[in-house]
């Protein structure tokens, strides 16, 4: 499992990659939870574009993050789920735990126009 994080305005974006299963759960938890707990982050978006699979233990980490975010009234969203991961979210009912968006730009725009503008500016700069 690989993990990166970025910030656009006051929104943190977590980007895990690979399989979020038993072997990855500890690392995923240690990387993700601080972002959910950080009072600087008005919202946390988890970008699943590079996640191939998530098991019950990976989903448990997501629940911990959701609880931590909600405890301080921060929003939390899941975006860009691959079809298999989207099915697992639906079967486990985790699609009712998170705000769900098709893409990261969609989520940013819905949560904070400033964050979306920061994302667009970064995209322009990087290209």
């Amino acid at each position: 499992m690989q993990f990166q994080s970025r910030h656009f305005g006051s929104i943190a974006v977590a980007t895990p990659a690979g399989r979020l299963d038993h072997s990855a759960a500890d690392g995923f938890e240690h990387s993700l939870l601080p972002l959910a707990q950080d009072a600087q982050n008005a919202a946390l978006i988890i970008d699943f574009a590079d996640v191939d699979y998530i098991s019950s233990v990976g989903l448990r980490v997501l629940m911990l993050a959701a609880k931590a975010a909600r405890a301080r009234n921060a929003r939390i969203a899941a975006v860009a789920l691959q079809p298999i991961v989207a099915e697992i979210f639906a079967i486990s009912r985790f699609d009712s735990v998170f705000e769900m968006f098709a893409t990261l730009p969609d989520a940013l725009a819905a949560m904070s126009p400033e964050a979306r503008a920061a994302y667009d500016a970064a995209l322009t700069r990087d290209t």
Partner: protein
Amino acid sequence: MRGVRFWGTRGSLPVALDASGVRAKLVAALRDAQGRTFDSDADVDAYVDALPFEIGATFGGNTSCVELLTGGPEYAACDLGSGLRAFGQAVIGQHGPASPQTYHLFVSHVHWDHIMGLPFFGPAYIPGNRLIFYGGHERLEAALRRQMDMPSFPVGFDVLRASIEFVHLTPDTPHDVAGMRVTLKRQHHVGDSYGYRFERNGRTIVYSTDSEHKLTEPGERLAFADFFRSADLVIFDAMYSLAEATSVKADWGHSSNIVGVELCQLAGAKELCLFHHEPALDDAALAKMLAETRRFEEITRGAAPLRVSAAYDGLEIIL
């Protein structure tokens, strides 16, 4: 072991299909039948049998009671939920009340939904019958007696006329009962519950209900995989969705379909049977959960497929 017969499959408290539920099934079946012709009773039967389960049948509402079809001359069952009444009536109906029978009754724990059927178990009132209760709880007998005390029930435990014995079973140690090798495992549930592994003639059935899997300790996961190892059938507490079991219903002592599939796959079990259904779920919701669980098994399948079924009152699974 030949298999199992489910007499009660619901968690927490009994439920019944109500008038609006029956009406909805009739409306759905009649709408589906529009334009069809039925030339004989056989045509009608064939049509009804082909309806989706959630329209043509019901999962039922009795609480936990699962008969073990041991292949031996004596009866055996897991838990004493409200389904126990129908089990007793069926045996009396088969043999008549004057034919003494022996019943081996394995109790997962003494929460009310798992013992409430005993006061209505006809064979317990008939002299000559022999009832042997097995469990891992020291207070099993006290709990069964207490629920029949005044003012909760008008007939006291001492009025029961069958011969009654209690056998305390130590977890993690195989015991020989009724020709079966029986092993208990302590499970995470308020006040503890015990799962049972039954082995006979090369066949294995695991009964694991009212068991929460916390997903935090790898050792616990592996221990349950060992307990389920290569079982022909695992009857598994799938009361909640994983989202519920890890949030608002965490520490309520129950598990999910997702964890059931994962543990059975890890164990190399052959069939997972979803059990201890949430009483708030109707037939359509339970049928949807079964379909989704089968899809999850397909997504995550390893070398060998895992059969997935959902228990209903009256279901027989023959190994």
